[in-house]
């Protein structure tokens, strides 16, 4: 029993790839985003016409482009872990740099969307749809920025375990966007 505890100090969390502490953060994040997404869905059910009108103000092409950008970034991050497992450090770092660059593309597109909304007078207090739109996408955007910092840190300290830890956070940020995109931009 004691030996088992010493082998697996984090219990069941030790079964997950990367540092267990990152998975504590990830579990917290999925619960938080889950509640945010549920709030958005319920608010849409209560005010369907307001949400339908708000959705027409969004550009699904930009959202879709950003989805492909994040998916591709996640692909590069996953390939970086694969390269690290094969002891190809330079390739792994290059792939991580690509993943980070695409993260910046996502941020740039999102900021362009916000600027466009501000230009036509749409803001956080316009209505319930846009309050939730800015809160959800803004909170996610902060996670993208944090994810880029984490990817940069693990690129500098590029042990396999660090790469697994950093990319796990990045994939969860991608995953949240993959669900958020159709909810906000597509389904009506």
């Amino acid at each position, binding site marked *: 029993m004691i030996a088992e505890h010493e082998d697996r100090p984090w219990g*069941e969390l030790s*079964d*997950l*790839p990367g540092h267990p502490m990152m998975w504590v953060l990830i579990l917290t994040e*999925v619960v938080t*985003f*889950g509640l945010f*997404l*549920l709030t*958005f*869905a*319920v608010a*849409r*059910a*209560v005010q*369907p016409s307001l949400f339908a009108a708000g959705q027409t103000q969004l550009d*699904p*092409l930009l959202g*879709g482009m950003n*989805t*492909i950008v994040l*998916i*591709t970034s*996640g*692909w590069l*991050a*996953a*390939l970086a*872990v*694969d390269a690290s*497992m094969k002891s190809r450090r330079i390739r792994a770092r290059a792939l991580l740099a690509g993943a980070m660059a695409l993260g910046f593309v996502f941020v740039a597109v999102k900021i362009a969307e916000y600027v466009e909304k501000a230009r036509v007078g749409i803001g956080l207090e316009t209505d319930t749809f846009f309050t939730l739109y800015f809160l959800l996408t803004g909170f996610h955007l902060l996670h993208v920025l944090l994810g880029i910092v984490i990817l940069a840190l693990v690129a500098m300290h590029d042990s396999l375990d660090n790469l*697994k830890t950093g*990319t*796990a956070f990045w*994939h*969860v940020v*991608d*995953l949240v966007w*993959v*669900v958020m*995109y*159709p*909810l906000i*931009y*597509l*389904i*009506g």
Partner: protein
Amino acid sequence: MTISSARRITLTWLLLVVLTLFGLGAGHLGMDGLAVNGLVLAAAFAKGRWMLLDFLKLRGVPTGWRTLFLSWLAFVTIAPWLAAAISLLRG
């Protein structure tokens, strides 16, 4: 025949792009209604599942963890569809 890890990751990425383009196409053509919403959200679930299994590498972890994350994914994709359905039924 076993598929290499890198090839599986790339295959997953291609599937994710195709499913994203499907959702984008449905939105761009102005398709709506419960059936289309269901298809778009089902595509989001499929994408999330592949990301969890092949990008996050949950394919090899104990079943309990996979079940937990896939249940979360099912919850956040089914709840919006149910909310939309309730909204339509209320007229």
